[in-house]
């Protein structure tokens, strides 16, 4: 069932959650593996691998050099250890840095040329890729039915972008939405200008690694004054074993434009851990607005903490122009270890940044996530709403920075971080950094930690819900502010995930 089938989010909320819990019975829903022949680069990371990745993507020399420079830099860097996460040391030489389905050796002309098995994969994931394609191909934009909003999907299967739907309609609007490897070929001037301008090559250990070895990702350019006619979406999936996925996303919203971007992630079940180090860069010019929503559901490992994805992600948006606006919304339910801080640089005067986050950790999961709001321009505004839910023996940390520079006069920040603990063996932590360097700005920070309320539980139980249903309902209520900030399609999926993630956390 696709989430699109239901249109009314608010009424459907609790019913959906309860259904979802029943349906999946505590198993990781996306834990199957597609058996497709894969093309691997040899294990390990050397300049030759970097060159190989670059060559396989058919990149020009300047890009290869850029990667090699990042590789050199990476060799001199140390893995960060300040986050409240604990995992065995990663052997960066025991990873595959490139894998692609063999049938992709020659790029398909259209989605019809794509291996049907792949399409089957997406179907299981619930991406309405095929239907969307038909919709776009046959009827065009105007024929889209009222109940389903259109979403253009760029699906990344391991390291290669499989197909980008809706190309025609986007093209008519002037929007460029393609894989980053295509963008390097077809729009080198844009890539050269913006790549690495928000997250510099030397930014941090994982971002530098990504700069050297990123294999694919999405590229979006919205020209001045254009309101992107549909929501853009990328669906990432790690399929192959021992494969690191290093995607790179670059979004440019030119003056006065608007785009909403959705990102979803899943990975099959494996008992060894896998590495994922992505970089997302967003550039927002004057009066433009970008919404970036993520539902992260990478495989979290089993109940005993075996396997799972290490998710080390650098995401940053730069509001370069005046009145630029960015909104990050994330639902983090997966991954064994999450290290992720989607940030906003509020450079333009009157620019705005928002961050809404739900992070759920269960069993042995560990999440250290939050945001940075760097206020540089005058009258800039930011808002942070973070909801952390910890169950089992999981650790959940909010780590954030709010910085008001001396020139960011009359700026405003409001931060709220709430943590909910389910069970007495888990942990919930809050580590905010607040730096105020002028007095006309106002900064407010609030944080609370509590457990699931006994009275609420009693109320639900009395009405015939079992303990797990009751907890799922209460948690959905606790996280409502964030769920409501998600685009509709994602809100549905997110609510189901909330319930699924908390399976086995009570009783």
């Amino acid at each position: 069932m696709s989430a699109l089938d239901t249109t009314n989010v608010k009424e459907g909320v609790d019913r959906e959650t309860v259904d979802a819990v029943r349906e999946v019975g505590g198993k990781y829903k996306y834990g199957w593996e597609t058996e497709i022949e894969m093309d691997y680069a040899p294990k390990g990371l050397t300049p030759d691998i970097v060159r190989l990745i670059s060559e396989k993507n058919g990149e020009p020399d300047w890009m290869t050099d850029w990667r090699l420079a990042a590789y050199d830099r990476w060799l001199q860097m140390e893995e960060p250890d300040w986050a409240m996460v604990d995992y065995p040391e990663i052997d960066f030489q025991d990873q595959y840095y490139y894998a692609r389905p063999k049938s992709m050796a020659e790029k398909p002309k259209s989605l019809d040329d794509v291996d049907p098995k792949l399409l089957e994969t997406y179907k299981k994931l619930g991406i309405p890729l095929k239907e969307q394609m038909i919709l776009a191909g046959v009827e065009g934009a105007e024929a889209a039915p009222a109940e389903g909003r259109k979403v253009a999907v760029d699906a990344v299967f391991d390291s290669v972008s499989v197909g980008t739907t809706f190309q025609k309609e986007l093209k008519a609007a002037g929007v460029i939405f393609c894989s980053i490897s295509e963008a390097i070929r077809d729009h080198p001037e844009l890539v050269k200008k913006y790549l690495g301008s928000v997250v510099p090559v030397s930014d941090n250990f994982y971002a530098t690694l990504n700069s050297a070895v990123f294999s694919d990702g999405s590229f979006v350019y919205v020209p001045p004054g254009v309101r992107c006619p549909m929501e853009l979406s990328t669906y990432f999936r790690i399929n192959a074993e021992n494969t690191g996925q290093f995607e790179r996303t670059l979004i440019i919203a030119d003056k006065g434009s608007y785009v909403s971007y959705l990102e979803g992630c899943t990975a099959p079940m494996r008992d060894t851990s896998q590495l994922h180090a992505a970089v997302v860069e967003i550039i927002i010019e004057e009066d433009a607005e970008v919404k970036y929503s993520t539902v992260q559901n990478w495989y979290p490992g089993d109940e005993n903490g075996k396997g799972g994805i290490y998710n080390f992600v650098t995401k940053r948006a730069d509001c370069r122009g005046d009145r630029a606006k960015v909104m990050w919304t994330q639902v983090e339910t997966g991954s064994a270890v999450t290290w992720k801080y989607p940030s906003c640089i509020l450079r333009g005067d009157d620019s705005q940044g928002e961050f809404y986050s739900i992070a759920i950790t269960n069993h042995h999961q560990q999440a250290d996530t939050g945001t940075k709001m760097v206020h540089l321009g005058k009258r800039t505004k930011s808002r942070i709403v973070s909801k952390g839910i910890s169950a089992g023996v999981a650790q959940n940390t909010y780590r954030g920075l709010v910085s008001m520079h001396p020139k960011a006069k009359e700026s405003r920040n409001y931060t709220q971080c709430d943590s909910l603990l389910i069970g007495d063996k888990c942990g919930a932590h809050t580590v905010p950094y607040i730096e105020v360097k002028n007095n006309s700005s106002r900064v407010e920070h609030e944080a609370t930690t509590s457990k699931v309320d006994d009275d609420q539980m009693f109320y639900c139980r009395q009405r015939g819900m079992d303990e797990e249903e009751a907890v799922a309902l209460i948690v959905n209520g606790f996280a409502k502010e964030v769920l409501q900030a998600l685009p509709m399609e994602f809100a549905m999926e997110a609510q189901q995930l909330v319930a699924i993630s908390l399976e086995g956390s009570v009783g």
Partner: protein
Amino acid sequence: MAMAQAKLDATDARLATLSLPTGGWAEAARRDALTRVQATGLPGRRDEYWKYTRPDMLTAATAAEAAIFDADEAPVFGEVDQLKLVFVDGVFDAAASDDLALDHVRIERLAEAGSADIHWARDLYGTLEIAGQTPVVRPLAALNTAFATDGVLIHVTGAAPKPIALVYHHSDPKSDVMLHHVIRMDAGAELTLLESGPVAARCNMVMEIDVADSAAFNHVRVQGRDHERQAATHIFARLGQESRFKSFTMTANGVMTRNECVIELTGDDASAHVAGACMGDGDFLHDDTVFITHDALNCESRQVFKKVLRNGATGVFQGKILVKAGAQKTDGYQISQSLLLDEDSQFLAKPELEIYADDVACSHGSTSGAIDEDALFYLRARGVPHGIATDLLTLSFLAEAVEEIEDAGLAEEIVTRMEAWLARRRG
């Protein structure tokens, strides 16, 4: 990881200026502390725990000079009935001090009692300080344990009939002082401890307090007004069942102040309140670093810190509530607020929660901003002159911290000092 060379050099340079007191019951603890300082090195600029405060002035081989400030007002707590102990540049002044005799209290000096082989303070000296070194190291406290030249050892067996006041005078602009106090509160004992004065050009002060079951310890401190003085203070407290701990610090002026407070609630139903009010003008950095560990059932902790800053003054707050697994029914509260009176001042805060128990209610809040224009307008509309209106609002801002002082007379004394400080700066 090996210590950075710069840090190693700075530590060696500082240690070269000091000599370890030998002999007596404290010697083992001193030697152990020195080893720890050598292992960790003194705080450096790149240490995460010193992110907002540059430790250079506090760790430099020799202290920067601090001019003596001519106090233009009556001594703090001068009117309170007290037992007074006076230190001048860290040296005990017997003539200016009261007789060290008080019912239910035994008072000794570290410099004198330290030569004996057996002493009750042996079990505590450096012990609480070591406990406070995890999970974050506090090398300045270890340095103090190793090299402190004097301090008071107070053993309280019942309810002390009047407060003990430690008065610190500063007479040499180059003085560099380390004092180490140990206080043992027996079950059911009660004591109010007052501290006042600038101590020295640079001071490093450690106070270890063991509060046994049902005992109550009250602490009110006024740090001296000398503009150039530098201070690093540490309070280490261990709280037993149903004990109560309260500490309030007022700071006005001082180029560099780092007040660390490390409290461990080890007995059920204990309560700890730590509060601070600071007022800074110009070249002023004030850092409150608090670490409260809940390791027992049904305990309460409260941190209230207020800072008024002007003319480029900097306020820092690092507060942490750690709730260990099993410390159920914990009630932890923390608030840090700053009032920035002009565009140049800044407030840097890191209020942390680390929680491993589920049945707890913990919250923290932190705000920063200018004076409320609406409130100012309200007062101005009623004929209150601008300067006085601003002062009134500033005092009301500081009030929440002052309210943490239990004794109304002592609170009044603090408010008087605050009013005077504001009045001197009124345009």
